[in-house]
């Protein structure tokens, strides 16, 4: 009886060892398999992910290599195909953009060269270099000159905007005096305002420290605003004002013109858009001045807007950071 108990005890011990050994082996096998499977899935996924990140960053140069003959292998294959496709499209875009830039640069020269000659000879004639001109001829000659200059302005506007759009216009930063910038703009428009018998004033806080930005382009933006104000105002005054805080300058141009309907206020900053209605139809202009001003201001990190009520004039303002480093 005792022997029987001992024997069954031995058997029990042996089976226990087997069970534990099997359990252990199973556990280890599971670990090993899990590791192998995760390695064969996670590594390719990581590689594909890294490749996609590089493509997103504009690097189309490498391929992702996944040896798997499963869905992941196919996915890698497709990523490679998409990359090839993107690379080709990207190159075609770059080519097109380069051609556009080259075309614009050539056009700029080709259009200006003859215009330069026309305006040059015209001015010499008006200055009497070729002898006295009959009185009757003076006005038509002056009209030719002013229209020639207008044409030149249009060409400049179109080229400026195209260059900005093509990303070819970079800001040339330097220190400038806000005071001098405003005075320069004032000097450029003074006679235009006088011709229309409009009063024009400037108000700048005294003792402003030197600002830093692209003076010529900011002056162009301000000039476009003042030019518009003069163009659309038939009676009253134009006021150019500068307000300053520690970080920004705000340039404003207030006029006593017809004002702008609320519905038109957003779209006048888009290219080739002027406010609708009879007033604008009679005014010459490319419809690009505000679009250019907007781009210049935005390139400086500022913003531009208009406050106006129809019949009560308009105030165009833009901000520019006091110093761009």
């Amino acid at each position, binding site marked *: 009886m005792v022997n029987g108990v001992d024997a069954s005890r031995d058997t029990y011990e042996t089976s226990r060892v087997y069970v534990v050994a099997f359990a252990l082996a199973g556990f280890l096998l599971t670990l090993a398999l899990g590791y192998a499977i995760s390695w064969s899935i996670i590594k390719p996924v990581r590689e594909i992910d890294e490749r996609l990140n590089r493509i997103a960053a504009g690097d189309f140069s490498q391929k992702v290599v996944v040896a798997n003959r499963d869905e992941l292998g196919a996915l890698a294959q497709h990523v490679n195909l998409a990359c090839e496709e993107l690379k080709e499209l990207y190159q075609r875009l770059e080519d097109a953009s380069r051609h556009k830039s080259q075309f614009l640069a050539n056009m700029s*020269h080709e259009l*200006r060269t003859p215009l*330069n*000659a026309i305006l*040059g*000879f015209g001015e010499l004639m008006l200055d009497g270099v070729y002898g006295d001109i009959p009185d009757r001829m003076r006005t038509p000659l002056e009209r030719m000159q002013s229209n020639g200059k207008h044409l030149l302005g249009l060409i400049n506007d179109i080229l400026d905007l195209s260059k900005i759009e093509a990303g070819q*216009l*970079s800001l*040339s930063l330097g220190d400038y005096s806000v005071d001098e910038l405003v005075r320069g703009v004032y000097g450029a428009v003074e006679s235009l305002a006088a011709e229309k018998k409009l009063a024009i004033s400037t108000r700048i806080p005294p003792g402003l420290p030197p600002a830093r930005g692209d003076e010529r382009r900011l002056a162009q933006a301000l000039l476009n605003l003042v030019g518009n104000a003069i163009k659309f105002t038939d009676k009253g005054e134009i006021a150019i004002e500068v307000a300053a805080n520690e970080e920004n300058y705000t340039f404003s141009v207030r006029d006593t013109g017809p004002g702008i309907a609320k519905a038109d206020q957003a779209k006048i900053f888009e290219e080739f858009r002027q406010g609708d209605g009879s007033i604008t139809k009679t005014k010459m202009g490319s419809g690009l001045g505000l679009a250019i001003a907007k781009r210049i201001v935005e390139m400086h990190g500022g913003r531009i807007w208009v406050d106006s009520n129809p019949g009560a004039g308009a105030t165009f303002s833009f901000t520019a950071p006091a110093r761009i480093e």
Partner: protein
Amino acid sequence: MKTDKTILVVEDQEDNRQILRDLLGSAGLRMIEAHDGEEALTVAQSQRPDLILMDIQLPLVDGYEATRNIKRDPELKDIPIIAVTSYALSGDEQKAREAGCDAYMAKPYSPRALLARIEQFLDQRL
């Protein structure tokens, strides 16, 4: 007036040369011509002008290079050079100054304004 003063005009466009001929002639200035950047140097060496008007877009050797060549010559380096270039691209003025130009005018320029600039330089050298 200043009939003894000679201006070298470096310009490849005949129309522009004619405008300058008429403009400078009316102001009593003598004008000599070069049609490209290479000729600019040889004419400057042989005729010693009092001032040079330098177009930038020129065949063979452009205006920047021609200016550098002239400014490198110790006998010519004091002649003022006014660069004249098509519509001011940002950076053009700086490029012209780096090349050694003494002043810069963007085309299309007003002949009146250009003449005023020239006379300003000539007066300084009297």
